C-alpha cells in the first residue's frame, strides 16, 4: 500500500477509536479504551508497513494518555499504576505492529521465491524438451538404420537431418540469447540485398514452412539496406518460423519489404492470416522464455526476444502490429539510408 494511503488509514482508525472512546467515556474505563486502541493497532498491522506502524503505535499511546488516562486532557501521568499501564501499552502496540509487519514481509518473500522457482522449472522443462526431442529422433533413427533397406535408410537419414537442424537451431538460439545478455553482440553493418536476405530467412525456416504457401514481395526500386546480414537473417527467420508454427497448416505466409508512407524508413514484414495474437500477449511475447498461453506453444520462447534484440542492435525496431483483416503481423523498421553514388 502507498505511504499516503497508509497514513490516511492510521488517522481514520485512531480517530474512530478516539471518537468512540469519548462518546462512551465514563461508561468505558480508560483500560477498556486502551484495549480498543490495541485492537485497532493489531487490525492495521495486517495491512500496512513497519514505519507507519511504529508511528501509529506511538500516536495511539499519546492519544490514549491525553484523552482518557487521568489527568485527562494532559500528557501528564500521576500515579505509578497509570505510568505502568501506558508503558506496557506502548510496548505491546509497537511489538504487535512490528511482528505482524515482519510476518507479512516473510510471507511475501516466500511467495516470490516460489514463483521464481516455478518459472525456473518451466524454463528448464522447455529447454530439456527442445534439446532432447531431436536427440531422441536421431538416436532412434540411428538404431533403426542398422537393418533398414535403401529406401528406409533414406527416410531415416532425412529424419536425422531434420532433427539435427532443429537441434542446431535451438542451441544457436540459446547462444544468441546469451550473446544478447552479455552484451557480446557486435553487429557488422554492410549493404545487404533484400532478395538475398529474404531468401536466406526462408531457407533457414524451410522445415517448418512445408505445407504453408509462401509469397515474397519486394517493392520495386527498393535500395539495399544497411544491416548485419547474419543477425537480420536470424531475426527474420525467427519471425517466419513463428508464423509457420503457430498457424494451422495451409495458412499463407507473406513476406513484404517496402518503404513507409513518409519514405523515411524501410520495413520488412512477416504477415499471416492465422488466429492472431490477443492484445495482452502482444508485448509480453518479446520477453525471453515467454511461450504465450501456457502449454499451447512449443519451443524455447526465445525467438522473438532474440529477433527484437538483434534488430535493435542494428538501429532498428521490431513490433507486433494489429492488422485490420485479422492474423498476425510482425514488422521490422530500419532507418533508410541510400548508398552513396559511386564517385568518379
Amino acid at each position, binding site marked *: 500500500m502507498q505511504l499516503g494511503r497508509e497514513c490516511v488509514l492510521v488517522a481514520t482508525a485512531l480517530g474512530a477509536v478516539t471518537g468512540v472512546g469519548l462518546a462512551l467515556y465514563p461508561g468505558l474505563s480508560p483500560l477498556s479504551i486502551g484495549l480498543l486502541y490495541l485492537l485497532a493497532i493489531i487490525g492495521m498491522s495486517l495491512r500496512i508497513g513497519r514505519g507507519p506502524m511504529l508511528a501509529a503505535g506511538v500516536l495511539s499511546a499519546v492519544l490514549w494518555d491525553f484523552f482518557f488516562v487521568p489527568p485527562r486532557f494532559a500528557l501528564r501521568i500521576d500515579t505509578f499504576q497509570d505510568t505502568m499501564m501506558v508503558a506496557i501499552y506502548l510496548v505491546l502496540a509497537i511489538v504487535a505492529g512490528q511482528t505482524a509487519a515482519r510476518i507479512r514481509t516473510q510471507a511475501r518473500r516466500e511467495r516470490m521465491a516460489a514463483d521464481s522457482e516455478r518459472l525456473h522449472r518451466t524454463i528448464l*522443462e522447455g529447454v*530439456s*524438451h527442445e534439446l*532432447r*526431442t*531431436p*536427440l*531422441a*529422433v*536421431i*538416436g*532412434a*533413427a540411428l*538404431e*533403426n538404420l542398422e537393418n*533398414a533397406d535403401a529406401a*528406409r535408410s533414406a*527416410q*531415416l537419414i532425412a*529424419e536425422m537431418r*531434420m*532433427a539435427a537442424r*532443429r537441434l542446431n537451431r535451438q542451441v544457436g538460439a540459446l547462444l544468441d540469447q546469451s550473446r544478447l545478455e552479455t552484451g557480446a553482440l557486435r553487429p557488422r553493418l554492410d549493404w545487404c540485398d533484400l532478395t538475398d536476405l529474404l531468401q536466406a530467412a526462408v531457407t533457414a525456416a524451410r522445415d517448418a514452412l512445408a505445407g504453408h504457401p509462401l509469397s515474397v514481395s519486394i517493392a520495386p526500386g527498393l535500395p539495399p539496406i544497411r544491416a548485419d546480414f547474419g543477425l537480420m537473417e536470424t531475426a527474420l527467420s525467427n519471425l517466419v518460423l513463428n508464423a509457420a508454427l503457430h498457424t494451422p497448416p495451409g495458412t499463407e505466409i507473406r513476406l513484404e519489404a517496402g518503404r513507409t508512407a513518409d519514405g523515411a524508413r524501410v520495413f520488412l514484414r512477416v504477415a499471416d492470416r492465422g488466429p492472431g495474437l490477443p492484445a495482452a500477449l502482444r508485448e509480453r511475447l518479446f520477453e525471453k522464455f515467454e511461450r504465450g498461453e501456457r*502449454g*499451447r*506453444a*512449443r519451443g524455447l520462447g526465445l525467438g522473438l526476444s532474440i529477433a527484437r534484440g538483434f534488430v535493435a542492435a542494428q538501429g532498428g525496431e521490431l513490433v507486433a502490429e494489429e492488422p485490420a483483416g485479422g492474423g498476425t503481423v510482425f514488422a521490422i523498421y530500419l532507418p533508410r539510408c541510400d548508398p552513396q553514388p559511386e564517385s568518379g
Partner: protein
Amino acid sequence: MSPAHPSVLVIDDEVQIRRIVRFTLEAAGFRVDEAETAQSGLARAATQQPDGIILDLGLPDQDGTQVLRRLREWSRAPVLVLTVRDTEESTLQAFEAGGDDYLTKPFSSRELVARLKAILRRVQAAPESAVIAFGEIEIDLAARQVRRGGIEVKLTGKEYALLQLLAQHRGRVVTHRQILRELWGPHAVESTHYLRVQMVHLRKKLERDPERPRHLQTDSGIGYRLVET
C-alpha cells in the same frame, strides 16, 4: 491370445517423434495409429480401442498425467509413458495415474519395443480369476489363502494386504505412496520403513532366495511390482 499385429496408439505432439516411433513399431510388427493432442488422443483411444498406448506427458492442450487419469476411468489398455521428464516425481505421478511403464527420451528403440511387448503380455496374461498362480505360489483371493508348493503359508494381515495389492496390479509398479496410503492410511505415506519391514517378511515366506527376489521385485526409489514369470 495376443493378436498377430497388436495395435498401438501413439499420443505425442512432436511429429518427428511420432514418425520415428511409427517406423520402429511397424518394423516390429505393430499396427500404429497417431494422435497429436490430448483431446484427439482420448477420442482415438475410445473409438479405435488400441491394444496399447504410448503417451507423451508434455502435450499442448492437457498434461499427459491428466490424460492417463481420464483414460483409466474407462480403459485398461496398457500405457507406456514416453517423455523427456526424468525426475522421480514425474515417474511416480505417471505410475500413480495408472501408467504401466515409463521410458525417458532419448530412448533406445529396441528397449521401447521390448517394454511395449512386456506390458501387452502382462495384460493378456491376467484373466479375472479368484486364484492367481505363479511359480510355486498360489494366491486364493476368495479364501484369502496363500499356498507355496501346495502348502499353506501363514501371513499376517498386513503381509496379506500387501501381497493382495501387488497381485491385483500384477506386472505393474505399485508406488510406495500408493501402498502406504492403502495399507496404513493417508498420514503414513512417508513412512516407507513400515513397508520395507513387511516386504522383508513377505519375501522370506514366499521367495526361494529372499535376497534375490524373483516375484516380489523392487523398482528402486519408486515402488514394488509382482512379476509372475
